[in-house]
């Protein structure tokens, strides 16, 4: 198993692993390959678009982007040894503290934000009132809005369980900030609508199925059959379509 998968599974949402297929294969090809290799069932994402340019002449190549958005390490992973994993651990630690250089007066705002208390963080900024505090205020608002946009995406794309969880956290986080409260409430209302019931049931069944098969021969004929029956059981749902897609991926012959 690649180190990157192990890092993703070790750190969960604290790290984002992006696999970039760099040999011009199709999306179906690399997605099928990842399932077949038992690398799915975690938060890693898979693309063929390079977020940053490569620096070497061949594969593999790994890069670490730190919490400040700057590339910390990049190159052949064989040359990094344990330094790479140590650097990831250090960045995870940094991500749980206010950004380096944060003025003392603004640290309570950052601490509140990182505890998931967006409204309290905004209030702390207002209390300080400096230009830096105004900038932090805007930053917290922007980040909260991105989280709300993510809830919307999750609802739109048939991940109601994840949407529910995130919306619940956000509802508490933004309590006392009317504009944000309204935006979160809109998604909560969508999630509670009767027409979401089928999506919820399908999403739950799909999540259980992925948990069951991702590390155990996902494309075993019995699992493919289960995927096809999930699609039939939950017609016209996003999760049903995901199950049908998995059955199709099983037909892809990876070289």
């Amino acid at each position, binding site marked *: 198993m*690649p180190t*990157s998968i192990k*890092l993703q*599974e*070790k750190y*969960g*949402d*604290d*790290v*984002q*692993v*992006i*696999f*970039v*297929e760099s*040999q011009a294969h199709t999306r179906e*090809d*690399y*997605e099928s390959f990842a399932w077949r*290799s038992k690398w*799915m*069932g*975690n*938060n890693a*994402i*898979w*693309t063929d*678009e*390079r*977020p*940053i340019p*490569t620096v070497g002449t061949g*594969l*593999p190549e*790994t*890069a*670490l*982007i*730190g*919490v*400040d*958005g*700057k*590339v910390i390490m990049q190159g052949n992973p064989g040359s990094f040894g344990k330094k790479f994993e140590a650097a990831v651990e250090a960045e995870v630690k940094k*991500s749980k503290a*206010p*950004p380096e*250089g944060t003025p003392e007066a603004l640290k309570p705002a950052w601490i509140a*934000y*990182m505890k*998931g208390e967006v409204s309290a963080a905004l209030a702390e900024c207002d209390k300080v009132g400096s230009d830096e505090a105004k900038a932090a205020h805007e*930053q917290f608002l922007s980040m909260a809005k*991105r989280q709300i946009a*993510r809830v919307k*995406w*999750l609802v739109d794309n048939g991940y109601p369980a*994840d949407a529910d969880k*995130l919306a619940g956290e956000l509802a508490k*986080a933004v309590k006392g900030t009317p504009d944000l409260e309204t935006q979160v409430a809109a998604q909560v209302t969508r999630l509670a609508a009767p027409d979401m019931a089928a999506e919820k049931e399908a999403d739950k069944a799909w999540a259980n199925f992925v948990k069951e098969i991702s590390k155990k021969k996902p494309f075993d004929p019995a699992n493919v059959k289960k995927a096809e029956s999930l699609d039939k059981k939950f017609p016209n749902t996003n999760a049903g379509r995901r199950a049908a897609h998995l059955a199709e991926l099983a037909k892809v012959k990876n*070289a």
Partner: protein
Amino acid sequence: MKTTVAVLSTAAMIAALVSFRSAPSDDGVSFKFSKPPVNSMGITGSDDLRGKPIVIDFWGTH
């Protein structure tokens, strides 16, 4: 298949989605995917990952 292969201790996956975290300067790398990656769960680019360490693994299926 050419990817990093090393040994780490096994740990459970944390499936949390909520990420209120430190998010410093804007002068780092910036990217936006033109189409959603597989398993993107709503991540559209670097703006959604502010303050989070990112590991990029360039690999190939052959």
